[in-house]
């Protein structure tokens, strides 16, 4: 069973990630169970997905949070993809979803996710981390404690240090 970090716990993953076919085609969706569909599939099959229920949507790093801002109430979760950890665009999308559009549900990091980046992700509002399968998830979890103090405000702690310094 695939494991995932959620709210600092290692738990069984309850959602199936659906990717686009290589030619951009949409995959057939399983009849039951939680799924995470690509943005394009959500946009194309909106009514069918709403009828099915229990689904989330994921954004590629070149897609924009604005495109789902009005729909966040429909999603069981939102996932943001890191095709490579050096592609930092989804840090900004995460902050926009949380800080600007008020998304409160599960925000999951997928893709190139491992120990050395998950604290950055957490600070930007992610609360679930699908650690790369070839990386040790227990080791990765420790990454959340690499730092315990931060200078600047972010999504997890909006107050910058200068508003908290004793």
């Amino acid at each position, binding site marked *: 069973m695939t494991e995932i970090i959620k709210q600092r716990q290692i738990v069984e993953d309850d959602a199936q990630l659906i990717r686009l076919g290589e030619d951009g085609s949409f995959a057939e969706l399983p009849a039951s169970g939680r799924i995470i569909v690509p943005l394009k599939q959500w946009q194309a099959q909106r009514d069918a997905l709403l009828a099915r229920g229990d689904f989330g949507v994921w954004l590629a790093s070149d897609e*924009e949070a604005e495109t789902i801002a009005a729909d966040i109430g429909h999603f069981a979760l939102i996932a943001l993809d890191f095709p490579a*950890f*050096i*592609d*930092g*665009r989804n*840090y*900004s999308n995460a*902050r926009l979803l949380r800080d*600007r559009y008020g998304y409160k549900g599960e925000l999951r990091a997928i893709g190139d996710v*491992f120990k*050395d980046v998950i*604290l*950055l*992700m957490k*600070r*930007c509002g992610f609360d679930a981390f699908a650690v790369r399968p070839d990386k*040790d998830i227990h080791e990765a979890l420790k990454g959340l404690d*690499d*730092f*315990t*103090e*931060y*200078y*600047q*405000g*972010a999504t997890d702690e*909006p*107050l*910058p*240090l*200068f*508003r908290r*310094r004793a």
Partner: protein
Amino acid sequence: MYVYDDFDQKIVDQRVAQFRDQTRRYLAGELTEDEFRPLRLQNGLYIQRYAPMLRVAVPYGELNSKQVRMLAHIARTYDRNYGHFTTRQNIQFNWPALENVPQILADLSTVQMHAIQTSGNCIRNTTSDQFAGVAHDEIVDPRPWCEIIRQWSTFHPEFAHLPRKFKIAVNGAVEDRAAIRVHDIGISIVKNDAGETGFAIYVGGGLGRTPIVGALIKPWLEKHHLLSYLDAVLRVYNRYGRRDNKYKARIKILVKAMTPEAFGAKVEQEWVHLKDGPTTLTDAEIARVSKFFVDPAYETLPGDDAAYLAAKASNPAFARWVQRNVFGHKQPGYAAVTLSLKKTGIAPGDATDAQLDAVADLSDQYSLGEVRVSHEQNLILPYVKQADLFAVWEKAKEIGFATPNIGLLTDIVCCPGGDFCSLANAKSIPIAEGIQRKFDDLDYLFDLGELDINISGCMNSCGHHHVGHIGILGVDKNGSEWYQISLGGRQGKHAALAKVIGPSFAQEAIPDVIEQIINVYVESREDSEHFVDVVDRLGIAPFKQRVYAKELAHD
């Protein structure tokens, strides 16, 4: 200068522990080369031509004597007894062993230093005026603002993986000694008619492959909103900067593609949401940081010390050094002294462990224990009494740091080049030395007056050749090293980019080419006209004609 409290120290200590763990996992094969590279770069660690290179941050160029002694210790203990000061006010060590780097960082942390974000695609060390706080032409001390930006940018989670590196410079004086127009963000501290402090924000400047002078997008930013505005600029860049081609990934390309007006409008749109949020600076925080930069307890001294004036009158060598290496201080009876790291035969910007220790001693004895690094790769003693200048000069001579050439032709700005750097196309240190040897007559150098020569070993432009009055760029042609010459660049308020004069030259030809260029200047100048003003007046044609008449060039 700024002093860490428990919070600052904890952040640096936790970074040391994190990097120790990353290095261990890399050496154990748990992190791949591709994974470790961006992680180590964000801690200033390159793998260079011969060995790793560690770049240590000197935030806005300010050091105390204890820190200078620590740099000497690192050079002695972990390196080959020297370090190299860079054009971004940092210091690089060329020969540390990878296994020792975590311990070097631990040593640095004991004196409140680190290597955080000295490389990689993140916000780099904020640079500023080397005479900040003491300059006679200062409007506002930039250092508190640099420190506020340093803290905001340190491990900023949203901007840890930008499309490309990102450099911010701050100037608070009439003269721009921080080269703010050639930075990703240039901040000019200004005062409005009501006497309030605010900022003019320039974006999209930079050198490298596509040199561009930054555009003004915000003529007046009220001081409390500095960080939310920076957040807005960075967010627009992080989202929309190109990531498909690293040569087109700097913010300057985005600003140019969108136009500065459209980019500025996009930033404003973003800023509307961030403005007045929790990151808005408080008066208490501005005051807390500013109190680290208040004036020291100056003695009340006469403006012109009699013994100093007498020494200047009777000792021409001392007078010469004063003319070039002593900078006007805002406090009567004090001076800022530039120690020249540009002695002929020594790589520009290099200092040995013994020299660093000696500089620390000098600063303790004569400069309240403070030292600055300039982006021209020299060191500064910012608080020297006029009465002590003669003694400082004598001791600087013993160290080898008293060459009276600041701002002159031999004060060459130079990257490490092909002798060290794996990115370089060509060597740059021997080029500097060849020119310095050609121009070894001090009287002649003084007669030539202010002249910036900048040498870069490749298009990355670490030697800032685009803004040199004479720029020299190393290029690779079919596996051999050639040098392209450009003229008419300027840094500062009237920043301008130099124009290439034509086909490149072989290394041996460069000193003669420079001599020909100088000869045209000497023949053409009117009164005390500076070199770069003659280039502006005449254009590059007469220089080009003279140089290529001798057929020194290679196509």
